[in-house]
């Protein structure tokens, strides 16, 4: 399991995916969620991670990003120098501000709901 997967998995194990740690998100540089959404969709983040940040699959599972509990620095580090099969995005392709905007967008996503509220998920 890669570093990024480990972080995501740890978040999942803690049940933190839908309970983003406010302090960590607040540590992020100011980002524009609307602009981040445009970049997220235009630059193909959604291709592996889903339009709702629900995760997906590339060569293996792609972590969900909706309300990621990952601190901004870790998030940016993964974008710049991914530890797994994720493509690396250099500054020439994606600026620090772009990453901050994307981070703001994924924090704005609704994330997990309560599965018990959806009857057909409990068949």
């Amino acid at each position, binding site marked *: *399991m890669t570093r990024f997967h480990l972080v995501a998995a740890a978040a*999942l194990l803690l049940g933190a*995916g*839908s309970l983003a740690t406010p302090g960590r998100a607040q540590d992020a540089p100011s980002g524009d969620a609307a602009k981040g959404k445009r970049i997220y969709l*235009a*630059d*193909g983040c*959604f*291709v*592996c991670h*889903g*339009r*709702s*940040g*629900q*995760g*997906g*699959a*590339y*060569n293996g599972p*792609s972590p*969900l990003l*909706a309300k990621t509990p990952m601190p901004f620095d870790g998030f940016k580090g993964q974008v710049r120098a991914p530890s*797994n*099969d*994720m*493509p*690396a*995005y*250099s500054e*020439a*392709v994606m600026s620090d501000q772009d990453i901050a905007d994307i981070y703001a967008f994924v924090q704005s*996503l*609704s*994330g*997990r*709901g*309560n*599965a018990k509220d*959806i009857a*057909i*998920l*409990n*068949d």
Partner: protein
Amino acid sequence: MSKRRQSPDSSRRNFLKSATLAGAATLAAPVAVAAQGNAPRPALKAAVPGPRQVAVETQPPSKDPVNQSSSGGDFMVDVLKTLDFDYLAMNCASSFRGIHEALVNYGKNQPEILTCPHEEIAVHMAQGYAKMEGKPMAMMCHGTVGLQHASMAMYNAWCDRVPVYVMIGNIVEANKRAPGVEWVHSAIDPAALVRDFVKWDDQPTSLQHFAESAVRAYKIAVTPPMAPVLLSLDAELQENPIPDPEGLRIPRLSRVVPPQADTGALAETAKMLVAAENPVIICDRLARTAAGMARLVELAETLQCPVLDMQGRMNFPSRHPLNHTFRRDAVLGQADVILGIEMNDMFGAVNAFSDRIVRTTRSVTKKDAKIITLGVRDLYMKANYQDFGRYQEVDLAIAGDGEASLPALIEAVKRLVDLGRQSAYEARGKKLGAARLAMVERAKSDATIGWDASPITTARMCAEVYAQIRNEDWSLVGNAIRNTWPHKLWNFDQAHRWNGGSGGAGVGYNAPASLGAALANKRHGRLTVAFQGDGDLMMVPNTLWTAAHHRIPILYVVHNNRAYHQEYMYLQAMAARLGRGIENAHIGTTITDPNVDYATVARGFGVHGEGPVVDPKDLAPALTRAIAAVKSGQPALVDVVTDPR
């Protein structure tokens, strides 16, 4: 596909019949007899007539009968009937017109012909059918161009270790071929094209030879390791009268007993499994029959050990507490003994691969973990195509059929399990059950993300489908790439719930193979469902016509992400690696502009079509209508516009 076109010498066949009937004396007179035909012939260019030409011009013309009372094709049909084929899938072609005619008239269309608008559909239908019904389907095609179409599907069946009984038409003798198309549709060794991925092939030169080779081919195909076989049928043999009916005999098909592994090796395996602290079972193409799943459950429950199901077959119940398929790394990281049964790629199962500039692998198991393999894969290999995967060092490699060998292994394990061990095993099982439940709850929670989004998430799509079929006798026979939701959340509890994937990852498998499985399910009254990738459907959309024509009930749910999505991601990765931006990754990888309206395509082929469904709220009603159509005996398709994965 090009078929036999009108030959300048349209009397060729009649001449051949007369030659056979008139005996050897007439065989020396082909040119003269051909010259009796009605069609114009080009002028002979030989300046000086040779002895044959002189003979032609001085001997009386041979008989030119226009009727015959039997054909070699009739006998071939008699042989096929002894082999218990229910269906023969084909795209019609002149090189097998003899046996085709015999089948529909003399044979009264038994085995029943399935009309397929592409040979790839025919082979894939046979592949899906065999995995569900447990016996091969026959298919037939042109020996050259038809076989070229069929070849990718045959490769899938080969990689999937599925028996498909392929017959091709050929005109062996050069002097019997009409000019033009019959020459380009003939080959000296047509099977050479696919010999790398068939288990056995032959080109019989007499009807008795055919009978023996036909039975032999069937036996070889269904003996594990199973695989496609091929018979090349000479057109002359098919079409000409049977020269000696009384002298022909159809051999009896032997009962095939799969090879059981060496009992000593199984006893040694049992010792290792019983003594292990954390034994793990991994399986891929294990269950050939319902007994396979029951036996694997018995072994796992006896040991209270986790099972990782690679899902090449319906091996293990999805909701069993010992099913840890989606906890692979956690389980293998703890394992001290790993038993791989009928594994396609043992190396890939116990190693992680990094697809970076420098490609690397690392083991996901402990250094001292013992690995045992049991299966028939090593019993029959070929060298060219690399479907055998990277070499994995193991401690014990046991050759034998997994399903057939499990009873002896279970017995050996049970003999060694004492009360003290049983108690420890129960504790282990409880821990595993709790870990699996946590995984399921996490998956359900993940599924809620983007629940109301459009395009529709794959989690929502799968949940909506399951909600409507879960109380039926359902069978999921096709899936889109890397769609894990069904196996995470649905209750796969019987042998017919699932039948594995393509084998060779050849795109174009899913639609026709699912249809073949649906045909098998039809007689059992099951509700057949297939998630259908749009890229796969674009390869063989005409499969839908075969579904409608033969009234095969099946629900296709199109996972329409409007892309060859895996390739889209690969291109994005390549571009990012080079720092060139990823704005162009959609070029050549997406299926947009125009978007395909698959529901309209379906309706055009005579299939009930729903969609495109864009709003998740519209999905349940569309599925309800489509399932009603399927229950009435029709095929139906629901086009769901989805998020990528």
